């Protein structure tokens, strides 16, 4: 195992992957998305002009082929006309009927859709609130739904522009791989602890201690990046969440492991005792992360009805960069662990 640690090819592979991930992950622009709409409240029976502002868009390049729709349940209202104001904003004229496909529109919220061949499809959920101040306007009493629009994708290569997430979606390449890296390093520490107990070779104890330290570092980085992300998207750096609790417990366990190691002088006894604790703790921690999220709902994707890694959630452009990011960060973690191991061996030789 020490031979692999001294070889350099996998470190270069890791660095190249990470450079690509960092440059592409931070450099690729976000797809266009709607930021706000004026006015946000409409009256039934009214003809109204909406000003729609977008992010990262260029409407001047769409050759006046823009169409806009309002969606309520599964019915659509098509805009009467759409005009381009500048790169980032358009105006759309709408006539709001009293009923759409037999459903009253009063006090309904509607989703806004803008489709054009250059920028692709821009949507914003519940962006328009329909009010009921204009009872007399009965000439447009009932309207039929427009034909369901065809979804076009953007001409430019970009990451999906999701509501709430927006630019912070890039954190996927930094926050999530930390947890993968942490689990791999803790697994390494666990396996080498078992190897120590069965082979009684102090080398494995050094491996186990370094693996746990690397896992702890990645865990702390994962918590920091997660807190930043949660502050922007969920409104609080530490919301009540099963995965956060699991992360906190993992940190406590491995800090306790580090303290246990520091408190014993004799290297053989230290190795034996800490290996026993590592094996014992890892089993309980595994049980914890498998069982605990079933007790409690989580805000994270993949829990409590939230999607994770499904087609709607993580699109192929992000997937192309996400898996390399996991591999790259894991390699970087093991590189750190190997440096730690070699440093400890050097210290042992000096003694």
């Amino acid at each position, binding site marked *: 195992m020490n031979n692999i640690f001294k070889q350099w090819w996998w470190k270069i592979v890791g660095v190249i992957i990470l450079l690509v991930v960092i440059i592409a992950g931070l450099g690729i622009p976000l797809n266009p998305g709607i930021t706000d709409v004026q006015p946000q409240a409409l009256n039934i029976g009214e003809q109204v002009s909406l000003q729609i502002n977008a992010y990262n868009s260029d409407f001047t390049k769409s050759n006046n082929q823009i169409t806009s729709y309002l969606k309520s349940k599964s019915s659509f209202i098509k805009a009467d006309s759409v005009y381009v104001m500048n790169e980032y904003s358009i105006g759309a004229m709408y006539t709001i009927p009293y009923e759409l496909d037999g459903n009253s529109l009063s006090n309904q919220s509607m989703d806004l859709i803008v489709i054009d061949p250059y920028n692709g499809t821009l949507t914003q959920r519940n962006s328009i609130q329909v009010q009921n101040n204009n009872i007399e306007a009965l000439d447009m009493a009932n309207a039929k739904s427009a034909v369901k629009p065809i979804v076009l994708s953007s001409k430019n290569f970009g990451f999906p522009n999701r509501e709430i997430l927006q630019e912070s979606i890039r954190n996927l390449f930094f926050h999530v791989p930390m947890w993968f890296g942490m689990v791999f390093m803790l697994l390494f520490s666990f396996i080498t602890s078992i190897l120590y*107990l069965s082979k009684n070779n102090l080398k494995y104890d050094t491996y186990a201690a370094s693996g746990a330290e690397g896992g702890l570092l990645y865990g702390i980085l994962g918590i920091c990046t997660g807190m930043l992300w949660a502050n922007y998207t969920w409104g609080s750096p530490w919301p009540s969440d099963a995965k956060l609790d699991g992360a906190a*417990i993992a940190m*406590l*366990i491995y800090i*306790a492991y580090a*303290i*246990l190691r520091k*408190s*014993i002088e004799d290297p053989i*006894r230290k190795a*034996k*005792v800490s*290996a*026993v*604790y590592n*094996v*014992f*703790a890892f*089993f*309980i921690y595994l*049980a*914890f992360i498998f*069982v*605990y999220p079933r*007790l409690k709902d989580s805000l994270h994707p993949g829990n409590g009805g939230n999607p994770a890694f499904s087609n709607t959630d993580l699109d192929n452009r992000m997937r192309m960069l996400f898996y390399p990011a996991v591999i790259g960060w894991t390699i970087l973690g093991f590189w750190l662990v190997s440096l730690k191991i070699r440093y400890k061996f050097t210290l042992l030789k000096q003694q």
Partner: protein
Amino acid sequence: MNLIQNTWSLIKKESKLEIKNAYGLASIVLYVVATIVVLYLSLASQGASKNIEVKYWNVLFWIIMLFAGINTMSKSFIQENSSRYLYYYSLVSPQAVILSKMIYNLLLMLLISIVSSLLFKLVLGSPVKNSLVYFIVILLGATSFSFLFTLVSSIASKAQNIALTAVLGLPLIVILLIYLMKLSREAFFVETSENFFKTLGILVLFDFMLFILSLILFPYLWRD
């Protein structure tokens, strides 16, 4: 067969030691009594000692159980000196030692749980409506605590620092504690809910895992 006989004689030895210097047992019971009196007086000073909400009763009870357990079991491997352990090493298998310690700690923990349940009933009232379920939960709680903290305290005793028992054990006990609180809520209603047997099964599986892990890992610790 030999293992069971050895375990049994070690448990007898353990209890004889405890009775011989009775202050050990007395100090454990006094610790729980004093903690509950402190809790009661603190609650009374806030005007909250009567009709305390059931969920807070539950949490307070299990937190006190937890710390009483840590306090009791952190001492399990330092009462006798290491030369005595060398003598046991020549006589019995390490499994017999850890087994006897676990069973003895279970009995101690059961005693503590019963004493503190009675005291809680006396000073704070008791919301328990289903005594059978409550007894099962207390038994499971004592099992979980003793199975986990016996190995952890043997680890801490090897580090010659019994204060480590709490640091090493607390992150590990969290999941068991949450399940125990969840299960003991069932005892506050006459009818058990449909999740009762599921939660019970998970806890029993957890305890079984701790039992097996202790039996496998303790022999490595013991040989010095």
